[in-house]
C-alpha cells in the first residue's frame, strides 16, 4: 500500500480545541460553586515589597531634611547634642523640619524587594532535588554494580537494600529517617530529608543500572577483556557508556519522580514548595490559585528536565 503524506496541522488544531474546551469547562465548573478568583493576591507570595521602619534613637528635634531623589536624609539632634542621620523613602516621611521626636518614633520607611514564600519554597525544592538526585545517582550506580558483582556478600547486601527500600513507602522512610535515625545521630531535618530521598532514588537507580548493564551484549565485555582491559576498565570504557545511553529515558523519569517526591519532606517541616503553598493558603485563602501556581512551579522544574533528557538522548543516538 502506498502511504500518502497527509497534512498534520488540522490534528494539532483539534488538540488545541480539545484543550481550550477543557479549560472552559473547568472555568464553568468553578463558576458553579461561586468561587471568587483573586489572582491579584498571588504575586505577593513570589516577591513582595518589604518595608523597613526607621525610628528615632532618643528625644530631640528634626534639625534638617535633605532630599536626594526618592530618598530623604533626616538629621535628628537630641537634647545632649548628639546627632542621628536616617535615610528613608521620601514619600514615607512622617515629619517636617523642627518637629519634636520621642524615642522610638517612626521617622519613615525604606522599601526593597524580597522573595516571597513560594519563591523560597521553589528554591528549597530545587536544591533538595539536586542534592538527593546526585547522591541517589551515586548510590544507585554503586548498588547496581554490586548487584552484578561476583562477590556474594555485595550481591546480597545490595539486593536487601533494593528490596527494603522498594517495598516500603517513601513517607514511612522519611519518618524513620527523621524520627529514628535523625534522633540517634542528631541529624538536621534537611539532612534527614535529603538522605531519605537519596536512598529511595538510589534503589530505583540501582535497578535501572543493573538492567542497563545486563542489556549490553556479552560480546562487548568479552571484546574489551580480550584486548587486555581489566573488568573495571571494561565496565568504565565500554559497558557503562553504552548502558547509560540505553537507560537515559527511565533515569530521566526517575528524576522527574524525585522532584515530585520532594513534596513528601514537608511532613518533617521542611518548607519546600508544597508546604509553602499550604502556608500561603492559610494567609491568602486563595486555595485554588495557590495550588495551581504550585503545580505550575513543579512543571517549571520538570518540563526543562525532560526536554534536556530527550536532547541528550538524541545527541547520544548519533552513533546508531
Amino acid at each position: 500500500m502506498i502511504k500518502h503524506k497527509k497534512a498534520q496541522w488540522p490534528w494539532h488544531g483539534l488538540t488545541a480545541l480539545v484543550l481550550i474546551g477543557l479549560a472552559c469547562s473547568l472555568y464553568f465548573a468553578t463558576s458553579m460553586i461561586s468561587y471568587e478568583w483573586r489572582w491579584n493576591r498571588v504575586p505577593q507570595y513570589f516577591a513582595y515589597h518589604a518595608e523597613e521602619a526607621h525610628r528615632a534613637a532618643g528625644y530631640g528635634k528634626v534639625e534638617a531634611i535633605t532630599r536626594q531623589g526618592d530618598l530623604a536624609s533626616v538629621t535628628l539632634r537630641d537634647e545632649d547634642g548628639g546627632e542621628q542621620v536616617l535615610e528613608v523613602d521620601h514619600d514615607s516621611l512622617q515629619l517636617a523640619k523642627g518637629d519634636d521626636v520621642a524615642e522610638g518614633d517612626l521617622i519613615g520607611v525604606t522599601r526593597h524587594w524580597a522573595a516571597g514564600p513560594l519563591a523560597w519554597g521553589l528554591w528549597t525544592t530545587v536544591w533538595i532535588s539536586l542534592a538527593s538526585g546526585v547522591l541517589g545517582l551515586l548510590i544507585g550506580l554503586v548498588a547496581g554494580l554490586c548487584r552484578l558483582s561476583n562477590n556474594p556478600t555485595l550481591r546480597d547486601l545490595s539486593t536487601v537494600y533494593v528490596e527494603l527500600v522498594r517495598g516500603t513507602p517513601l513517607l514511612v522512610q522519611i519518618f524513620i529517617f527523621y524520627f529514628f535515625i535523625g534522633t540517634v545521630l542528631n541529624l538536621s531535618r534537611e539532612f534527614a530529608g535529603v538522605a531519605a530521598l537519596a536512598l529511595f532514588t538510589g534503589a530505583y537507580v540501582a535497578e535501572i543500572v543493573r538492567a542497563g548493564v545486563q542489556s549490553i551484549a556479552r560480546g562487548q565485555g568479552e571484546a574489551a577483556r580480550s584486548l587486555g582491559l581489566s573488568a573495571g576498565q571494561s565496565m568504565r570504557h565500554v559497558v557503562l557508556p553504552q548502558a547509560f545511553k540505553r537507560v537515559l529515558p527511565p533515569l530521566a523519569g526517575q528524576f522527574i519522580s524525585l522532584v515530585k517526591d520532594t513534596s513528601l519532606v514537608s511532613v518533617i517541616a521542611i518548607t519546600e514548595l508544597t508546604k509553602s503553598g499550604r502556608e500561603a493558603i492559610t494567609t491568602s485563602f486563595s486555595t485554588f490559585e495557590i495550588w495551581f501556581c504550585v503545580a505550575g512551579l513543579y512543571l517549571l522544574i520538570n518540563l526543562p528536565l525532560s526536554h534536556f533528557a530527550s536532547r541528550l538522548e538524541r545527541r547520544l543516538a548519533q552513533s546508531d
Partner: protein
Amino acid sequence: MIEVRDLVKVFDTRGQVVRAVDHVSTNVAKGEVLVVLGPSGSGKSTFLRCLNGLESFDEGTVSIDGLQLVDPKTDVNAYRREVGMVFQHFNLFPHMTVLENLCLAQKVVRKRGKQEREAKARMLLEKVGIGQKANEFPSRLSGGQQQRVAIARALAMDPKVMLFDEPTSALDPEMVGEVLDVMKTLAVEGMTMVCVTHEMGFAREVADRVLFFDHGKLLEDSPPEQFFTAPKDLRAQAFLRQVL
C-alpha cells in the same frame, strides 16, 4: 609458542554434564597457522576461548611463551594483551568511532601517547584497506568492513598470537573474501594464528595444520593436504563428505 596440555572444559547445565573440551593437548609453533574444524557443538569455539581465558577451564594448562594462564601469579590482563581475538559478530564498540575503537586499549592498557596510538591505528586501518573510514561509527560500515576493523583493533595491541572465532560466519557471502584476504596477508607476514572457521578453501590454502574436533575431542591433527585427501578418523571423513 602456545602449549596446551590436557585441557578439559565441562559445562554443567542442570545436572547434564557435557565435556565441551575433552583432554586436548597441542602445540603451536611461532608463525604457524592452525585451522580448527569440526561440526557445530564440537567444542572448537570453546577450545579457542580457553586459549585466552575468556572461558575458564576445569583441568589442564595453557601457556603462551611460557606464561601460564592458570598460574595465580599471572596477571590475566597482561596475558591477554599478548593474544588478539577476532569474534564472529565483530563486537566493535558501537559508541566509539573506528579510530577510537583502535585507540582505546592502546591508551588504557598499553599507555601509549595520543600521537603514537593514532599513528598506529591509522597505519593498521590503511593495512586492512579502510583508512578513509577512521572517523565513522561502526554502524555505518558493512559487515566485512567491521570485521576488518576488528582485526585491526586486535593487531593494534601488537599481539604475539591471533585467535579467530568464525570470523566470516556472520558475513554476507560477497564480503567473506575481503576478510580472508586480510587474514592471508597476516599469515604470510608470519603471524601465529589459530582460526576456527568453516572456510575450507582458506584451510587448504593457508593452514600449516588442521585440527579436527568432535564431541570435545581432538580427533585429528595433520597438514591440510593430508587432512583433505586422506583423513584418518571416520568422523572427519563423514564431516568432509558433508561440507565438500
